[in-house]
């Protein structure tokens, strides 16, 4: 039960922090059509976060709902990978983060949709469909930026290089028995997806080197504190208020 609670927090926190970052694009996207698209992705991610966190709270049975878990935990209590904390950077960096995260999430959610634990499987089945679209969106843009102008090629290449060290954490051993899967097993199929997109985008896969780690144990980047401070302060300034 504790392992599953922790696992749900990890799934929920990945989605929540990703949503918070994606939504930072609202009113500043490179084109109106991308305003609509990025907001859709943020809404999907936020919806996934709410489902996982709500379920985590129910399992825990201590009266914590999605908001208590999102707004009243401190930095070290969050279980998300560091990848989702990274600042948005330019559009290429956001596309790279979205591609590398959603390709993983899509594989993970698809596996989890067959988990024996029915509620986890139900949430994952819905999330798998959403993440499939995110992969498609991010792939299309990776290709257009990678195989666009010399400037966009350079920015897309730099973006993938910058984000790459943060992807290893996705495949570290970490799962509840109920999930019935080993994250390391996802890396092969993930690389297949990523290699195909990078190839079409005329980009090389970065070499593996330094790898970020620690998010699942509550060790985060310097960027994470300010993100949480901004997200949580109104809620925390009014103890016990309803919104």
């Amino acid at each position, binding site marked *: 039960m504790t392992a599953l609670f922790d696992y749900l927090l990890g799934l929920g926190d990945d989605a929540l922090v990703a949503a918070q970052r994606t939504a930072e694009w609202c009113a500043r996207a490179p084109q*109106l*059509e991308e305003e609509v698209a990025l907001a859709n992705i943020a*809404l999907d991610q*936020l919806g996934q976060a709410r489902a996982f966190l709500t379920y985590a709270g129910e399992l825990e049975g201590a009266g914590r709902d999605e908001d208590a878990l999102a707004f009243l935990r401190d930095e070290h209590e969050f279980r998300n990978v560091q990848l989702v904390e990274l600042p948005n950077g330019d559009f290429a960096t956001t596309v790279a983060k979205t591609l590398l995260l959603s390709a993983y999430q899509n594989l993970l959610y698809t596996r989890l949709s067959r988990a024996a634990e029915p509620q986890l499987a139900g949430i994952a089945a819905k999330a798998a469909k959403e993440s499939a679209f995110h992969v498609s*969106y991010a792939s*299309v843009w990776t*290709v257009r930026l990678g195989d666009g102008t010399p*400037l966009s090629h350079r920015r897309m290449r730099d973006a993938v290089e910058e984000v790459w060290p943060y992807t290893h954490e996705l495949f570290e051993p970490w799962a509840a028995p109920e999930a019935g899967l080993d994250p390391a097993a996802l890396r092969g199929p993930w690389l297949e997806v990523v290699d195909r997109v990078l190839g079409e985008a005329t980009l090389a896969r970065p070499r593996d080197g330094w790898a970020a780690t620690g998010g699942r144990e509550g060790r985060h980047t310097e960027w994470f504190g300010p993100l949480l401070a901004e997200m949580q302060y109104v809620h925390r300034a009014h103890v016990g208020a309803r919104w």
Partner: protein
Amino acid sequence: MSISAFDALIAGDQKIEYKDWMPDGYRESLIRQIAQHAHSEIMGMQPEAAWISRAPSLARKAVLIAKVQDEAGHGLYLYAVAETLGARREDLLDALHEGRQKYLSFINYPTLTWADVGALAWLTDGAAVVNQVSLCRTSYGPYARALVRICREESFHHRQGFDLLYTLSQGTPAQRRSLQEAVERWWQPALAMFGPPDSLSTHSASSMAWRIKRATNDELRQRFVDLCVPQAEALGVRLPDPALRWNPERGHHDFTPPDYDELMRVVAGHGPRNKQRLAHRRRAHEEGAWVREAAAAHAAKEAAKQAAAREIDAQEAIAQEVDAVEEEWPLWEVFVRPRRGVGHTHAGSLRAPDAALALHSARDLYTRREEGVSLWVVPSRSMTSSDPEHKDAYFAPAADKQYRHASFFPPPEGVEGL
């Protein structure tokens, strides 16, 4: 079509459609009004988007993202309508960025607290709904259809704003205080949204005659005040107007009109946030230029590859494609199948560098409220339409051939199965 045919359509409360002949003044008034409406949608994203990261619950965060997203979508619907009148989105955006075209003045006020997010939605979206419900009957067909869709979505914006405030009204003393203060800040800007009084409005008379507008500024403002008073009571807030009271003789509330000098100052660029809002918008557009150029360059490469495969002159294909995307992505028409068993119907248009992105955008823009199960996108330049000039030659001859319809042959009484 001629001026008399145009006048007859207007007099008969018929719609003017894409490519119909229209007086220059009608076209210009429409473009001005639609552009201002579209600019207001995209500029209006800013004061609310500023609060997405700080929304105090996840449910409210989702609602706010969806609302700001709708505003981008409404901007897109409206720019597409302006394009049917021969305006180009790029030119309209330039006019906005250079300050030659305006947007609604309330956007230049700051959202200082979470309660401002609710007050802005309750009051300014409420005012927009009053305005736009009236505009749904506008004489230009594509604008009227876009407005029907927009109104349906804006009523959610308005309602969620009230809901946000109602929750605050049931909350802590600090929450109730912030509610009262926010409503005080947004009341005047909302009243000013209906524009100058009829006696001072420069465009009202011709817009009314052409049935672009269907009610005057003052009529709509009165309707809005009458709607707000009972809602304010439900929220337990005081509207900041000592003169506000029910007038049984008029059957309306008396109220203090907004300060038009202030309205004119803010419209002229001298409001609290004009400079920042416009600078933010310009920066987003400029910082996005390399992305738009990359997509266009990629589309040109793909077109060249396809041309090479088909052994057409690749240079010519690239030239065409580059021409098309040089300043702006090309226009696509979107068709949605609402559910299995019925045909695809035209939903609107959008801009995209290529078919894959056009499909993505169409999905996000035209089916985000479960409107469809299948999509077609077609480059607008590939569509051929019948000429309105040939309407009679094409369609009138069918009118006297009633014998094509079964109803022309009433069966004798008692005979069944025909």
